């Protein structure tokens, strides 16, 4: 669906059901350069199990009007504006990578709205190497290749995956190409500049879950464990064989973990 946030036309998929703000909401946040389709193997599942689902394209990504936002803090504010405009309630956030930084800010600052947070493949911060930022600014195709190349583990690189016939690596490239120019660079710079992770993590008091990948080359295990250390009583899972792109590379495992966690911490009628 399209809706308005601060005068801009924003797209979010609702998982194939009409958005109904009387139901608890699951909001899925995508990572740098990606879009709503990244969560396609999770969003529809919740939408057909009595949750209202919202998977927005951040501004400047695929169907949402730009310009891209330039800081993690402004993305959290934007998310709050989006939530407010839809009167969404009882929110479970499910976030991947950069989305996790936004989730840290959102859940620590707008506590009343949030019932649970699931952090997928992230640490407290996401330092980005300067070669990647430089490529994102000056040679987007090279940057896309680095993101997709480092992001996916071996199953992705071998074009395997649970959806018959689909290549997640190729789809990843096409998604990144559908952003407005500069969106990936803006995302990466926002990640690189974000430094409030520790404080934000400590301030979150709802149930939290962390799902890490055993073969993550973008948010290494050490960084993920740092997030775990600073959260209150997180539920921790490690999907050993997956690379960074857990929602695509290990959708069945991650869906089950999210399901169990959200069903118990934010139950729906």
């Amino acid at each position, binding site marked *: 669906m399209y809706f308005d946030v601060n005068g801009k036309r924003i797209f979010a998929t609702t998982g194939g059901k009409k958005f109904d703000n009387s139901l608890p909401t699951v909001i899925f946040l995508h990572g740098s350069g990606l879009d*709503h389709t990244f969560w396609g193997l999770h969003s529809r*599942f919740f939408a057909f199990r009595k949750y209202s689902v919202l998977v927005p394209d951040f501004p400047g990504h695929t*169907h949402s009007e730009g310009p891209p936002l330039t800081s993690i803090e402004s993305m959290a504010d934007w998310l709050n504006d989006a939530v407010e405009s839809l009167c969404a309630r009882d929110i479970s956030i499910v976030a991947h990578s950069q989305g996790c930084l936004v989730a840290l800010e959102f859940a620590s600052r707008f506590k009343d709205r949030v019932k649970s947070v699931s952090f997928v493949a992230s640490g407290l911060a996401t330092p980005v190497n300067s070669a990647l930022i430089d490529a994102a600014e000056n040679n987007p195709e090279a940057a896309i290749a680095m993101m997709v190349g480092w992001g996916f583990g071996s199953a992705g690189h071998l*074009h395997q995956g649970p959806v*018959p016939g689909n290549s997640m690596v190729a789809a990843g490239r*096409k*998604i990144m190409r559908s952003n407005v120019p500069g969106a990936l660079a803006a995302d990466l710079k926002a990640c690189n500049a974000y430094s409030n992770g520790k404080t934000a993590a400590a301030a979150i008091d709802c149930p939290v879950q962390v799902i890490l990948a055993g073969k993550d080359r973008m948010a290494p295990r050490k960084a993920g464990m740092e997030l775990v250390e600073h959260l209150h009583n997180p539920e921790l899972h490690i999907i050993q064989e997956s690379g960074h792109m857990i929602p695509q590379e290990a959708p069945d495992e991650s*869906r089950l973990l999210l399901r169990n966690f959200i069903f118990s911490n934010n139950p729906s009628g």
Partner: protein
Amino acid sequence: MSDFYEFDTLSLHAGQTVDKEFGARATPIYQTTSYVFPDTDTASSIFNLERGGHAYSRISNPTVGVLEQRIASLEGGSAAVCTASGMAATFCAITAILSQGDHIVASSQMYGGNISLMKNTLPRFGITATFVDPTDIDGFGKAIKDNTKLIYGELIGNPGLDILDLEAIAKIGSQHHIPFMVDATFNTPYLCRPFDFGANITMHSVTKWMGGHGAAIGGVVVDGGNFDWGATDKYPTISEPYAPFQGINLWEEFGPAAFATRIRAEAMRDFGPSMSPMNAFLLLQGIETLSLRMDKHLSNTMKMLDFLQNHKQVSWVSHPSLPSHSSHALAKKYLPKGAGSIVSFGVKGGRDAGKAFIENVELASHLANVGDAKTLIIHPATTTHSRIDAQALVAAGITEDMIRLSVGLEDIKDLQSGFEAGFRAARKFAGE
């Protein structure tokens, strides 16, 4: 591993997860119609497109799935759907986006089956086509009407071997916001990947070079994932709610794989032209050696061109790698490794000489196929293109004396001496 696997590695490994139970190295043949669901929730979520997985082999099958992902990887597409034949692939792709009253702009130089589908069969269902000389780029733009929903052509035209200017036609497609679909059978992803030049959909008759052994019929549609189906209201089958799946909006849910998902959700379910697991297995064996075979096809082709050009009983030889071919420059651009292994030539003495040649040539098989490891020959005017009228024959660039040769992998000396047997028999018609 920020680098991506190269073509030869993908040809061998892409799409296959090594069998967890027994460690089988080859892709197992999952010869099954259906799949046991662990619980009702999993069953309903597979049926409702909430997750991946197999329910029934008409829709998808694990062996076929490996082939699909392998071809998607080689072609650079976001998704692929295999079908029982190349014709089924074309039909499924067209019906996924065109409905009654819609129109196709197609190259006039295509496989007879493609022409017949668009000229005779689809019009019965209200889908019409305008055929354009593939070398007349402006003609493609001029043939577009308000109801045009697809531009279609073969990269290497059949059988005149004119090369389609992919970039120029893709540009016309994008100006009019119409997807450009390429029948890439004759080139395979090893020689050219049409998505790199702006095409949006490809299909292959994998019966041909992809399989290479001539043992299995099969087809594939590959979704380039690079067409914005939601930018206009022209493609409601992709961008509007689809009732059978609780009003799913495929474009919104699946983005770069929306088109392929429509084929699987509709054509495979309602028409059912599925590839068998056994055929998928055979075709996978072929793809493992695609680059090796194509290199040999190409080197044998160059040697046969040399042989035919210097043969006194040959009146003309046509192949895009020859400077005399009108598509030579385009062939160099789009097919730098070589312009495929189909050669057309005329035997001096016309129709009777051609007949005598075909009936007496040794080693080369007289049959209606191309892209086999074995050398094949045929007389198009009386076989593959016999069902199209005289005007279309001329438009397709076919002459009465034309022999179409699909150069195989035999030893070149044996192949050439087999040809000499044919030429000996044709000599009496050559007027010498």
